[in-house]
């Protein structure tokens, strides 16, 4: 069973640096990284680029990237740039506590 090696809440204003920092922490022993997008209502082209780079890095290190609570508008952006197959998506059960 995969282990969650990192959990990161992404701030909309800091998507690019946050992903860069997360990328630096990726080690090469597999596992799973969970990025919480619940606070990201919109992404900009540089953030898309950063996600593309992050996905590539995670691939190289055999790390599975899980995006949590991506809103549908952002999901559509990722779909249009063909990035959705690079990530797993999960949603929090709205009844469960944070």
């Amino acid at each position, binding site marked *: 069973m995969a282990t969650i090696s990192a959990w990161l809440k992404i701030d909309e204003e800091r998507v690019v640096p946050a992903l860069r920092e997360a990328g630096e922490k990726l080690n090469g022993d597999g596992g799973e990284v969970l990025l919480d997008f619940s606070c990201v209502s*919109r992404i*900009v082209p*540089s953030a*898309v680029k950063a996600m593309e780079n992050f996905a590539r890095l995670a691939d190289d290190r055999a790390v599975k990237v899980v995006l949590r609570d991506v809103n549908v508008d952002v999901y*559509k*952006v*990722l779909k*249009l*740039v063909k990035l959705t197959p690079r990530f797993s998506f999960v949603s929090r059960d709205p009844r469960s506590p944070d």
Partner: protein
Amino acid sequence: MITSEAVKERVEIPLASETLSEERIAYLEGLVSQARTAAAVFTQFSQEDVDRIVKPMVLAGLEQAQHLARLAVEETKIGVMEDKVIKNMVATEFAYNYIKDKRTVGVIREFPERNLVEIAEPIGVIFSLTPITNPTSTVLFKCIMAIKTRNAVIFSPHPKAWRCCSEAVRIMYETALRHGAPEGVFTCLESHTLQDNAYLMKHKAVGLIDATGGPGAVKAAYSSGKPALGVGPGNTPVYLEKTADLNTAVVDIIISKTFDNGTICASEQTVVIDDEIYDLVLNKFAELGAHICNDKETKLLARTVIDPETGFMQPLAVGQKATDIARFVGLSVKPNTKLLIAPIQGVGREHPLSVEKLFPLLSVYRAKSVDEALKVCVDVNHAGGLGHTAVIFSRNDEVIRKFGEVINAGRLIVNSPGSIGALGAVYNDLVPTLSFGCGTGGGNSTTDNVNIYHYLNIKRLARRTQAHMWFRVPNQIYFNMNAVENVRNFPSRCTVIITNPAMEHIGHVDIVRRCMPEQTHVHVLVIPDAEPEVKVVVHGVETLNFYKADQIIALGGGSVIDAAKIMKLKYESPEADLQELAAPFLDLRKRVVQYPTEKLTRARLIAISTTSGTGSEVTPFAVLTDKEHGRKVTLADYSLSPDVAIVDPQFVMSMPKGLTADTGIDCLTHALEAGVSSYASPYTDADAMQAIRLVFKYLPIAYENPRDEEARCMMHNAACIAAMAFSNASVGVNHALAHAFGARFGVAHGRANALMLPHVIAYNAAVPTKFMPSPYTQGYVAHKKYATVADLLGLGGNTIEEKVKNLVAATEQLLDRLGFPRSIAELGISREEFERAIPDLTKLAFDDPSWRSNPRMPLMSELADLFWSAYHGRGVAQAANASQKQTA
């Protein structure tokens, strides 16, 4: 001397891109990736976000209009700087004026009365080719449209207009970026090749090609396999008709043809002038600075400004001043000459100047008549100008309309300059644009002035609509014993009673006669007691005409009443074509054929039914046999419904037992089928349920005690009530099977219905293999409605399946009690004979329109199975029990 570079381009744009280097491909891929990301990010923008970006872009374009115009003229050496400023302003200010209040994000239009909502979806990445003739204005326009619609654009300017275009793109991009547009929303190819274009045109990430330019570019765009807006050349004919305001016309033509030195493809090319005004018009042109060429000069121009090999204009002449062209070819003209005018005698290759000339050279043609003028305009239109633009100057509306009809042009400009008129929003209310759609004539998908809506995918959100339904029956129905007395209340000068021999024989006609007002002249027309034939109807109509009848009384069963309905139709509307009126239809409200509403005469139809089954006294149906052509004509329209129905049981008291049973089961089938029909409504349900209740209670009594007045009365009412239900909800697959079987084996309709009925209930109550599409029903309810019937009849059962099973059993018991054969085999039809008949029976049943309102869509194989079930008969209740388990 003049090279034909643009002409070469027409044939040399490659569709393949194999020659691109890896570095070049990487560069192009980078551009596409950037544009795709920008377009994707753009989908998150709201209308307010977009509008916040558009306005400053427009203002920047206006501010830089002169700068860009100067750059364009310096680089391209084409056109007039002052006019290019105007073009840049039209491309920004006028475009903005049109789009500023338009919604292009989310819901853009709503049609509440149609339950429709239009929602915008951006295209994504647009690959845009821009021309040499209108370089910066086209870029400004396309940038504004793209931002308004949340698209990203990769620009590929004409190589000879690259600097000015890339500057226009830069100005638009930087302004857009400052106001929140996504990075990479506009890019401009650097020093590109035709292979670059080919590569991008075929790129998966490019959603649309918007090619404004020469025919080569447009052709390449359309050949790429991508959705494309290809806007290319024209050849604008102008008809200057004798009623026109000549002063205005001449000035308008000069304005248009000299605007930017004639570079707009909508500008006038050949002016066809009426003979009567020809000289006057040329004098006016000359007075205002045009040089009228003589024969020699015209020939010289034809040899030089038109490429003799291709027949197209020489590119170096494009956008040049009239004086420069004159000097270049060796014509002597005054220094202030604005326009060269060359008379031509025809259109086509032998008349080189009849083609498009994007410079201030105008051909003129002297026409002897309107007819000749229009024909020459058509010729010019077909010589490279199909779908583009045409102009007419006239005060004669008829000529203007005719011009509009015969000329194939997306823009038909009336009494105004062609080029500026076609741009829209200046001289008329056309949508402002820098790209003219030329329709299929020009190889384009649209004739519109290309605008924001062409940069959008418009999605239509269609909510389920509550279809209008109806409940239509005769507005007067008199029932119960001696109801026929009411005939007395209908004044009539002359009444024709249509009946059959039996009615006359047993004295029913006399009963009716005695109820007629004294002053009414009565004629009795006796017709055979069989499905009416054409000759019977013809004779009936002759009788009605002879007596000038104002009232028809149909006294009899379904056949007599049907005959009377058709006679009335032909009597009132002799031109009615029965064969045409019998055309099939799916939805009564959308039927192709309309019944006549204009009537020569009017006659009241009173229907008095003498059987308790068909309910023809209230139905809108009639069947006619056309023996001559060997066919049946089934008519259905509410205009056929009788005006008055008399449901008087005294006329059925003497019905034989067999007929009582047959017609009674027909009535039950009507009610059961209307009850579960996909057209059923609360109105028809009420009737269907009541009729079923009455049949189960009173039919056995009427059958066993024919003189029981109450039972006869209630069965007569039941037949009429069931008919009101199926007149509005229609019937179902039982009737389709019975029609086919009855016709093939000569079995009475009620009897045929009875053989099928238990099997059809079981069939409809099971989970359908195929559901019937119906806007009138929600979910599958047939089994539930049968259960409701079972409850109504007090048949017991705790679950739906138990109730359905009980209904089937009760129906079988009723049929047994009425002495019906319970299988087709019992009729003496051998298995072999039936097997042979099955393919035809199935086909006939499937062709029958009755099943189209059945709740379950029957497959051919299911129809065959139903026939076989009816052949074997009995045991349906048990089978129903099994199939009901699936439904649960």
